[in-house]
């Protein structure tokens, strides 16, 4: 598909570095965890999870995201998608554990809401560097239980999400959904592996995307060649066992880069 043109209808300052852009197109059929390619015209096109059917939530980290931060209500950008596979929805009554770090909240907030709507019991562990960087606290707490951790202790438990996770009985949860910076996800992966629960968990991965439609091969994971853009971005823990996940990624040229 060619990029859709979407107009910005609202901009929400979620944290000093994070904004939600609400736009005038609704991806009715999008599953939580699917992503779109966001085209900051004249600059770059980058992947973003859908933080709702008509919004993305962007952390400013470089050129494209800075360009997006220059946009105002009424401005437009390009969007193609939704692409990829989202998180698996729970059955009614099932317990769901969500582990979200940083801007990993973007795909997980709609997932939490969808889980609640489908009658599941949701518990979220939400981590960030500090209180001001916590995003979607309300959305998660309205969807169920919420534990907060901050690296600097400005809110919730001081430390990492794994500290809460270690104290939980992970076997209670039918679904475990994880998204955040890869070192954080790798730590969660290891904790769950230690508990023998990793196969049931799902992780939303970040890799460098070019085509985003499963053709170019830029985003393939070792050792099975799974494409993050098309076979993912959400993978089960089982798919990630003994993989490059947590160890290395690749840059735009295809060179390996340590995580």
């Amino acid at each position, binding site marked *: 598909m060619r*990029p859709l043109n979407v107009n910005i209808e609202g901009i929400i300052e979620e944290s000093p570095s994070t904004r939600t852009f609400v736009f005038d197109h609704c991806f009715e059929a999008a599953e939580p965890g699917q992503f779109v390619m966001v085209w900051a015209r*004249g600059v770059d096109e980058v992947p973003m999870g859908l933080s709702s059917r008509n919004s993305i939530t962007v952390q400013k980290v470089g050129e494209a995201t800075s360009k997006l931060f220059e946009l105002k209500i009424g401005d*437009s950008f390009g969007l193609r998608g939704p692409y990829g596979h989202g998180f698996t929805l729970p059955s009614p009554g099932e317990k769901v554990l969500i582990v979200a770090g940083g801007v990993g909240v973007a795909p997980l907030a709609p997932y939490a809401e969808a889980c609640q709507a489908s009658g599941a019991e949701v518990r979220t562990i939400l981590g960030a560097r500090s209180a001001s960087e916590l995003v979607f606290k309300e959305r998660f707490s309205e969807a169920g239980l919420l534990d907060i951790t901050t690296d600097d202790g400005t809110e919730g438990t001081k430390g990492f999400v794994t500290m809460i996770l270690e104290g939980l009985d992970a076997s209670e949860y039918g679904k475990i959904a994880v998204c955040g910076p890869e070192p954080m996800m790798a730590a969660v992966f290891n904790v769950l592996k230690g508990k023998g629960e990793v196969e049931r968990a799902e992780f939303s991965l970040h890799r460098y995307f*070019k085509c985003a439609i499963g053709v170019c*091969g830029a985003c393939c994971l070792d050792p099975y*060649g799974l494409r993050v853009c098309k076979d993912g971005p959400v993978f089960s823990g089982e798919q990630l066992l003994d993989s490059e996940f947590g160890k290395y990624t690749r840059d735009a040229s295809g060179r390996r880069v340590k995580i």
Partner: protein
Amino acid sequence: MYSLTGLELKNPTILAAGVLGTTGASLRRVALEGGAGAVVSKSIGPEPKKGHPNPSMIKLDCGFLNAMGLPNPSYSEFKGELEIARTAAAVPVVASIFGGSAEEFAEVAEGLLPGKPDAFELNVSCPHAEGYGAAVGSNPCLVEAITARVKEVSDLPVWVKLTPNVSDITAIGKAAEAGGADAVVAINTVKGMAIDIESGYPILGNRSGGLSGPAVKPVAVKCVYDLYAALEVPVIGVGGVSTWEDAVEMIMAGASAVQVGSAVYERLDVFSEISAGIETFLGRKGYGDVKDIIGLAHERV
């Protein structure tokens, strides 16, 4: 087994260059899960290259437009990927290479030899990388020189991939043959462009790019047909093949084997599907072998 320029292919479908060929693991997957008879890597050059900014590929109604810009980690990094592909893929692994001169092509080829590729494919045909690809590939003298130089540095079969963006593709094909090419591959993408009318911006980060997929199949069939008539060496057909019917058409035009690129978009096992379809067709028609229909259209007058 199907023999092509000395390689033994389990079937006549080959993964095209630049598609799912960035890593050894991905090449292996296309061979094992996808069913390709051989795989060609992403085009590899002398230095790491990030490629063009995104959007670098979009799907259009009738095909795909891409301008990746030859992103690659350089031969020194990629030879390890080749090895991974080669040891486990169980099918021939062809290294696609590019450079700005005959010397650079030779440097890259030599640099990849430790990865033990089964053949080289020379990309003298990418339409959207300044100073590379079609920039050299529309000049017959350069194509001959590059081919000859790569033949010097190794005994491996050398395939030369041609651009359709020239007045006469057979002139370039003949130059490749004169340089010692073991086969030619036709076609790389056709120059193309798309503009976002809401903003006026060209969609691709590189502004323009190359068209692939169903839209270019008739162009590819014509190029293969002309090359088959003009050359002695085998022609490998590529461009818009996504079904066994497309593959048979390409083979009847003169292709000894077909490459499939964009069609992996639909499904990875398009290779198994195509090769099974070809077999069924040959059986139904009473042909013994793919070789019986290579270039058949030339006999039908």
